[in-house]
Structures are given as C-alpha cells and as structure tokens.
C-alpha cells in the first residue's frame, strides 16, 4: 500500500446545542465525533458507514474544514491542515472536493451549467471567467457523460442523476486528489444510482482519485469501497477491508447492521433469521459510559459498561473496538 493521502488522528467534534439549568449556567455540548482515527491511501476508496447521528457526515465535514475540530489532527498529503484558515484553506480546497447528497440543492438555480462548473476554475484564477473556461467545461461534461450543449442550460432543466453528474464535473474541475462523497446517490432512484456509482468508479480509475464514500446504504458501500469504517454514536467501531467486514464482522454492531439489511431475494429473505437489535442509538449529549453500544448489545458484559474498548487489531488489517470479541 502506498503512502497515506489522508490521516485522521483522534478526531473529535463537539457542537454547542443550547444551555441547561435554571439560569442557563451550563453549556450543553453534543459530541458528534469522538476520537476517530483512520488513514486512507492514495487511489483508495474508504467507505464510512453508519446510521443517522453516527457522526459520519460530521467526520467528512471536519476533514473539509467546515466544522470546528475540538481535538485531534487531520493530515493531508503529509501536511497538518487541522488549523489552516482563510486563504491557505482555500488553497487546500483545490485538492479536496465534496460531492454532497442533494443534487437538487447544491446547484445554484440562477447559474447556467457552464458558470457552475467553471466556478472553481475562476475562483482559483485558472481562467478569467466562465466563457474563458468553455473548453475545460466541455471536457468535464464529456468526462461525466453529459452533452456539451448542456452548459447553456439552468440546473432545473435536468433530472437528479444528471444534476449529480454536473456536481461531479464541478468537483473534478481542479483535478483534486481527494473527493469526499457524502451520500452521493441516496437521493437518486435505483436505476440512476447505478449509473452514478459506475461513473464514480470509472473516474477513479481514469483519474486516480481517492474517495471517502459516506453512506448509510451498506450494499452500495460494499460495492464501491476498498476499505470500510463502521461508525456508531460518534465512534468508529470497526475498520477493515470491505470483504472481511462483510464476511467476518467482529463488532456486534456491525453484525447487527449487516443482518438488518434486506436482501433482494425472497428465498434468502424467507429463510433468514434477521437479528433485529432492539432499542435506538444513544443520546449524544449524555452518552452511556463505557462502550456506546452496550445498551443494545446482546453480548454486553459488565466491563463494557465501565470502560470504552480501544480500537485494536483483531486480525491482519482488521481493527475493531470491542471487549468481548
């Protein structure tokens, strides 16, 4: 494996969510991401999976410098970018792009496609204006499977899948190294999802891109990722190669999560005993002591209540945070 393009060390993000007490004397804080560490090699796709409130999106935003980091480090291409601000941060943005979830909201409805796709180029002074960037815009539209004539249209002329292609074209404009895709296909129909997933895979091969693929859909993540991290209640609980997560999950939460996903095959579904885990993810303002999952875990032991298990290698290239396994 080549050198790490991105390293996240002990990342912790807290949000102020209000005040407590009669006089409002206590600041209430929610720990959205708690001591998360992982690293991603160049050219790799790292899938970050979790349910809502697991902290997967916040992790992505913290890497992009969009939310304040309470503690921990983000190292990108060998450089610590945790506290970089202003102009320098903007320079880093050239190499790190986001594909957001909602293709309907992330395109300015008042701008034509050419202006949208050329915006990063104009902002970073590659071209004077959108018109000057036409050639590059055509190239990008073709790269993402769109018609070059589309650049004269407004976003509302396009379907969700096409909009997401425009979003991808914009993200690729500056030849970034890392792309953080935050639920890039979950707003799309199944048949369109497959188009976009295939496009992302093709682009990765052609442009040697590195992806962080954030999603709740385990099947999509499995399909696209080389390695996968599973998050629960702000903690990373398991990281391994995609195949080993699915074949031999270690953390009981991973196991339950995998078991919850319905398989589109009635013969399998009928015969399968779904291991339904009761209860719901914990309150992140007052998280449980010890392992966050112990309140729902079928294997919980007394020590799980007392101390949080550390992330440790359980097999070659397979880490998990669990006392029992």
């Amino acid at each position: 494996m080549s050198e790490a393009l991105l390293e996240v060390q002990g990342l912790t993000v807290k949000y102020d969510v209000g005040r407590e007490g009669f006089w409002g004397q206590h600041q209430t804080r929610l720990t959205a991401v708690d001591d998360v560490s992982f690293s991603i090699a160049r050219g790799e796709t790292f899938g970050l999976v979790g349910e809502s409130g697991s902290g997967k999106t916040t992790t992505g935003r913290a890497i992009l410098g969009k939310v304040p980091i309470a503690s921990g480090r983000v190292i990108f291409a060998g450089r610590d970018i945790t506290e970089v601000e202003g102009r320098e941060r903007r320079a880093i943005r050239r190499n790190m792009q986001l594909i957001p979830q909602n293709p309907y909201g992330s395109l300015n409805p008042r701008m034509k496609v050419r202006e949208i796709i050329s915006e990063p180029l104009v902002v970073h002074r590659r071209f004077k204006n959108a018109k000057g960037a036409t050639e590059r815009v055509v190239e990008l539209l073709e790269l993402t499977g769109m018609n070059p004539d589309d650049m004269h249209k407004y976003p509302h002329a396009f379907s969700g899948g096409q909009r997401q292609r425009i979003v991808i074209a914009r993200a690729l404009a500056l030849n970034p190294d890392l792309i953080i895709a935050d639920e890039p296909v979950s707003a799309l129909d199944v048949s369109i999802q497959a188009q976009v997933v295939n496009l992302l895979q093709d682009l990765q091969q052609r442009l040697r891109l590195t992806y962080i693929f954030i999603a709740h859909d385990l099947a999509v993540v499995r399909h696209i990722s080389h390695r996968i991290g599973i998050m629960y209640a702000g903690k990373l609980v398991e990281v391994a190669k995609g195949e080993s997560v699915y074949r031999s999950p270690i953390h009981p939460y991973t196991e339950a999560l995998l078991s919850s996903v319905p398989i589109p095959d009635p013969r399998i579904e009928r015969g399968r005993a779904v291991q339904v885990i009761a209860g719901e993810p914990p309150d992140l303002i007052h998280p449980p002591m010890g392992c966050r999952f112990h309140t729902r875990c079928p294997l919980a032991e007394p020590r799980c209540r007392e101390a949080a298990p550390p992330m440790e290698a359980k097999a070659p290239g397979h880490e998990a945070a669990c006392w029992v396994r």
Partner: protein
Amino acid sequence: MGRYLLKRLSQAVLVVISVMVVVFVVTRLIGDPVAVMLPLEATEENRALLEAQLGLDRPILTQLADYVADAVRFDLGDSLWQRRPAMDVVLERLPPTLLLVAAGFAFGVLLGVVIGVVSGMRPGGWVDRAAVTFVLLGVSLPQFWIGLVFIVFFSVGLGWFPTSGSGGIEYLVLPGVVLGLPVVGRIALVTRSSMIDELNTQHVKDATARGVSRARIVMVHAMKGAGIATITIAGWELIGVLAGGAVVVETVYAWPGIGFTAMQAIERHDIILVQAVVFVVAIMVVTINIIVDIAYTMLDPRVKFDRVS
C-alpha cells in the same frame, strides 16, 4: 421557563427605558421645549424662568438621571395645560381608550379570523376572492377618512349613530369599527395563508387518510396551527391599534381617551403630558409583547418544550 420570563421582563424594562431616553433626547437636545411651550411674544426673562422651572438649566446628564428616576416613580411632572400631575391626566383618560381599543381589536380579530378561515378553506373559490377583495380594501382605506365618511353616511345621512363624543354604546360603534377595520384585513390575510399552509401539510393529508372528518381537520388540526401564527400578528395589531390607530380615531370622533389627549397636548405645546402618554403606552406595549409570548408558549408544545427544559 423562569429564566426565560426573567429575560423577557428585563427586556421589557429596557424597552421602556429606551423609549423614554429617545423622547428625552429628542425633546431636550434636538428640539427646544421652551421655545415650543412659550408664546411668541415671550421675553428672555420668561424664558429663563420657564427653563429654571423645568430644570432645563442643569447639566444634561443630571436632567436625564432625574428624569429617569422620576419616571420610575411614575412621576413625569405637571401638565402645563392642565396644571396638575400629567400622570393623573393620563390615568383619567385611559379607561375610555382601553374600552375603545378592546372593542375595535375584538371586532377586528374576530371578523378577521372568521374571514381568514373561511377563505383559506377553499383558496381560489368565489368566497375567497370576495373575501380577499374586501380585506384588501380594509387595509388600503385611510382610517381617518373612513371615520369621516362613516360620520357623513351613518351619522349625518342615516342618523343611526352620534357624530362624535362618548356616552352609551351607540357612541362606541363607529369608532370601534373604524379602529378594527385594518385589523380585520391583516388578521384575515395571515390567518388565510396559514390555513392554506396547514391544510397542505402532510399530517393533514394523513389525518384525512385516517378518516378524520373535514370539520375536525379544519377546526382542530388546521385552526390550532394557524392560531399559533395568528397570535403573533394579533399582538402586533394590538400594539398598532393602541399606539397609532387610537390616536387617529379618537381625534376624528373626539373620543376622550389618551390619543385625543395627546393631540390636544401637542396643540397646546404641553410636552410633559405628551411624554406621559408615550410612557404609559410604552408600558402597555411591552406588556402586550410579554402576554403574546406567554400565549405562544402555552399554545405551541414545541416552544414550551424548548423553554421549560
């Protein structure tokens, strides 16, 4: 909740104080109260005497401090026109204003809500179109003019109501209606649009799917939601009626309330009395704001939940 109320109260006090400071600054610094109060032929000696009498010869900050300290004790000085404490005059004229405001506001809110609900139930229908037209007229006609036209038509022409003054209920009808007319319009527009929004929500559609009757959906589901939106506007309207409409309408109908008194005081250059009216109205305005806030909390469980916890 306790913290919240305390915060609101302190804000209210702050508002009253800032109103008084603004009035003070305007009257003492920008304007020349002595010049306004004195007759044209007054001499320099008259002027000095009045200045001393009003304490205007002292440093400005001392004046401000004294003024605020007095205001806290509800002492705003003697009315130049009536030659007795200005506060007494205002408190004496307050009940007729409260009566008029209550009547006009109640008329405005009741009719406004009814029109808003009925027209919001079927937007685009002929009832709605008629209602919206009426409502737009209501907010477009100048109040003082409507007041005069009503006098010409109902009092002089038809002889149904007295032209002006106060007395029995018949004196209340015209000024009450005129005062409430713009309120009808604005309340109706807000109620209508929130009714339309409420009736288009997913939960109303799903309640229909559960078989909840149309009547209950309108009366319970939509009206409660729309009511929460209307309450805020009603508060603004009440403040508008009290601090604006009442002055105009009382003047048109020679209704012996604080609005009419304020106009008389202005004509007689009685700045002290005008200040007293402003002070009392400011206190009522902040009280209304607090009441609206509390009503809002009681009606909307989401807000209650937020504030209590």
